[in-house]
């Protein structure tokens, strides 16, 4: 084997080894989480917006808007913590706002996730009761539970291009 082809072969081996290591850190299953995770979180954000819009307008359509959207937030949030498997962060090389701190301080992340789930359940209860007085406060409490996690574990909104 000439010196030149030896160099080529070893370079190729190194490249393949590099890809293998990367794959081990962020497998296809983890990468596959990112887009659906963004879609589901966006649905939840949109659902809370639909509720806060009704509050802002001062016209509450319980059956067509408040109830279904509160239900979306509650149902989706129940699975929230499954969407962040280890290795589905920026190490995938994909565009994601998820910060490595999610896995570095995972106990705190899980605590905030569960707090958000609890607020979503309360919001859904209020929607079922059509409790007009309680709705505004609980919509804010739910939004703040989302925000608590985003403030610590999501890249600042202005730092990246818009998500698609």
């Amino acid at each position, binding site marked *: 084997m000439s010196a030149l082809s030896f160099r080529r072969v070893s370079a190729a081996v190194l490249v393949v080894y590099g890809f293998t290591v990367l794959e081990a850190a962020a497998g296809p299953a983890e990468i596959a989480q990112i887009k659906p995770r963004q879609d589901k979180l966006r649905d939840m*954000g*949109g659902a*809370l917006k*639909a509720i806060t819009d009704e509050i802002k307008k001062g016209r509450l359509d319980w059956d067509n808007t408040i109830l279904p959207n509160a239900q979306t937030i509650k149902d989706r949030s129940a699975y929230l913590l499954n969407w962040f498997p280890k290795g589905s962060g920026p190490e995938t090389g994909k565009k994601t706002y998820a910060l490595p701190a999610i896995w570095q301080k995972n106990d705190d992340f899980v605590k905030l996730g569960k707090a958000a789930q609890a607020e979503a359940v309360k919001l859904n209860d209020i929607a079922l009761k059509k409790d007009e007085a309680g709705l505004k406060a609980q*919509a804010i409490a739910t939004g703040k539970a*989302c*925000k608590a996690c985003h403030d610590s574990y999501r890249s600042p*909104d202005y730092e990246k291009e818009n998500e698609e």
Partner: protein
Amino acid sequence: MEAALADTVDLRVWDVPVRAMHWLLVIGIGVCWWSGVNNELEYHTYSGYVVLWIVLMRLYWGLVGSSTARFVNFVRGPKAVLDYAATLHRRDTPHAHGHNALGAISIVVMLGLVLTVVCLGLFAVDVDGLYSGPMSIYVSFKQGRHIAHSHYYWFNILLWMIGLHLAAVIFYLVYKRQNLVVPMISGKRQHRGEAGHAEMKIAPLWRFVIGAILVSAIVYAVSVGFYF
């Protein structure tokens, strides 16, 4: 020395509303910047309304305010701007009374940018769907998120424009030995016998009050998304 002093008189150049709006805008944009970066969106919304109020008042004052505040008196055509730009390197040019031809462009561009950024903010939606702009009820979550990103983009351009404005003020101070900051505080500047500088014509207070009532009504209507 005494003879030189005898030649200088204080000439009124900026009225109280112009000075107050200028410095309130500085504070308002500062609060918006801080609250935006720190995701304090409740304060961000309120400071945004204050900035909207100031910009609309400044536009109104640019139509009916004191002489140096009016757009017709300081916005100049391309020839005047080029003529002025050609003398920029000279130190012996007379002090412009009010905005100079080049500065006028910067004022109009900055006001336009502030208005653009505020209007985008009115329609912007935050990631939580919680503290969205009051007009975001007219757009979808996804559209509002796109608008939020345009809001950041144009704010960055505004920051560059503000940087240019500050650089120009420093250039006049250091190179041309003209202090533009003191007149923006005191309202007066020293007049060294340049010809053709008439005293500022001050607009009556009632005009400001009428504008303030009108603009407050507009900002209120916007803040509730035109849902009364």
